[in-house]
């Protein structure tokens, strides 16, 4: 059952798109990430123009994150204050990122930067997460005790000015690291067409040292705010949001996210992280591969007139 998308101006198989939305939504609910890093390449692979895929994806990510953040907030697993600080940085970053992306497109180097960002960020984060989670799984198999949790937080987190209390996360740290993290993720989200959860989640765990229970819900809150802004900006400035595509995706996405959030409690945390790490690593390598393989067609049509 094919359906014609009015903005993308291509016909897609509607059940396939709904299914894709459901699968990504499931992953999103399970790991507390937006899933944009998976969705954007898949949509482009299905023949949807990249600017439309990136922009419409923002609506889908916002919807499925909304669907699962409510479940987390009922469990009081969202640090609203930390989410707001991160999102403040994210908003600045999104504006910067949109300008940077516009300039890169004019130079014709957007493809390169997108591929490199996927390769570097997904590769590094996927690799680190995979190593960490595999060693945790191995330790458990051998019945070794878990390593003592390093409660000592990095000194620079405390040395910086502008300290703020985050009672939910039991933190009293400078706002500079979370704001900087928000800006960084905002820029990436505009360039890579992602929510940024795959960077936020590990950064909140390993850099900000937030309690594990707070991380997923708070990251989802930040993702909603950033992607809602990105989605409206993309529609307003580039007219690239395809509401039919977004609706198809989010129908699957919101249902998938609910099942994902429930399924996550059936797995051990390190197993979940290992699966996510594998997915992240594979997508990163696949996107980076294009830089090294000889293309069949040396000439590439560029979308948009800059």
């Amino acid at each position, binding site marked *: 059952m*094919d*359906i*014609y998308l*009015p*903005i993308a*101006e*291509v*016909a897609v198989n509607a059940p396939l798109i709904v299914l894709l939305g459901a699968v990504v939504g499931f992953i999103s609910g399970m790991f507390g990430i937006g899933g944009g890093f998976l969705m954007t390449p898949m949509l482009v692979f299905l023949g949807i123009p990249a600017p439309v895929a990136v922009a419409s994806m923002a*609506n889908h990510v*916002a*919807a*499925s*994150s*909304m*669907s*699962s953040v*409510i*479940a987390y907030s009922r469990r009081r697993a969202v640090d609203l204050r930390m989410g707001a600080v991160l999102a403040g940085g994210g908003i600045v970053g999104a504006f910067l990122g949109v300008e940077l992306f516009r300039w890169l497109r004019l*130079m*014709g*180097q957007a*493809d*390169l930067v997108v591929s490199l960002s996927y390769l570097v960020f997904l590769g590094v984060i996927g690799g680190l997460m995979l190593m960490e989670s595999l060693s945790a799984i191995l330790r458990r198999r051998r019945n070794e005790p878990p390593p003592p949790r390093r409660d000592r937080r990095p000194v620079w987190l405390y040395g910086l000015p502008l300290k703020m209390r985050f009672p939910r996360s039991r933190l009293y740290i400078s706002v500079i690291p979370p704001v900087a993290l928000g800006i960084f993720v905002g820029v990436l989200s505009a360039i890579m067409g992602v929510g940024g959860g795959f960077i936020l989640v590990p950064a909140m765990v390993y850099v900000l040292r937030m309690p594990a229970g707070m991380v997923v819900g708070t990251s989802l809150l930040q993702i*909603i705010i950033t992607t*809602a802004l990105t*989605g*409206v*900006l*993309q*529609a*307003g*400035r580039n*007219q690239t*949001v395809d*509401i*039919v595509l*977004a*609706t198809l995706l*989010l*129908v699957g996405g*919101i*249902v998938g*996210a*609910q099942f994902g959030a429930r399924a996550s409690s059936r797995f051990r945390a390190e197993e979940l992280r290992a699966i996510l790490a594998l997915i992240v690593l594979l997508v990163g390598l696949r996107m980076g591969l*294009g*830089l*090294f*393989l*000889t*293309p069949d*067609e*040396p*000439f*590439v*049509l*560029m*979308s*948009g*007139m*800059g």
Partner: protein
Amino acid sequence: MLGAVLALATTAAVPGPPLPPSPNPTAPVISAALTDTTVQVKSDFRGARIVLYGAVFDSAARPSDVVVLVRGPEQPVRLTRKQKVAGLWLNSRPVVFRGAPGFYRAASNRPLDDIATFGTLRRLGAGVDHLPINAPAEQHIETRYGVRDVVVSSLGPDYYDWRRAVVRIREKSGLYHEDGQGVSFVDRGLFRAEIALPTGAPTGVYQAQILLFQDGKPVSSRQRTLTVEKVGLERALYVWAHDRPWSYGLAAMAFALAAGWGASAAFRRD
């Protein structure tokens, strides 16, 4: 003058012999029509096939060739070339080509090269190799070997590779097509051709030019227009998204957030 126009209009309105008026009664004349003059793009749009049919009126029955050229609205092409730099395939500076129609089809009863000379085809823009595609931003005029006003492209000798790539990429997506057997004579003087529009065909006004060739020269031509337009919900959404993008974006996002909220409420386990 006004009387003459009115008289013409009246003659055209009266259903009669389909012979169009011609200054010389023995001159050959071509006549053609499309089965559909509008193509509606709806949610089930999967491309369209339009039949063009027509007739050659020639009392002397000289050997005739028919060429049908269909051009869609112009769509500039922004193209980049992958180059290997330090082991990585990187994009070159993008080049903008103008004069490229968003859709192009050349159909004829035998290959174009057998019908007319290179110069004639070039002048008419008949055939994918003769489309007036060029990159004006890359061109400058200089004096070479004492010859003034020579147009030089900064793409240098690769220029034709770039130009061919524009055609090749559009051919691959079904937007450009040249068919030396696309026009078939079904009876003496009576011909038909099919125009296949792919799903990605741009919306807008298409011009169909039907040319009659005798002895390698175009002796008669007809022009027909075809409109491809979005209708219904597709059109409403497209117009909304382009005319009032901010309200469209806000509404789309509000809908997405509400849907997420609704799903969470629906799935809540109490």
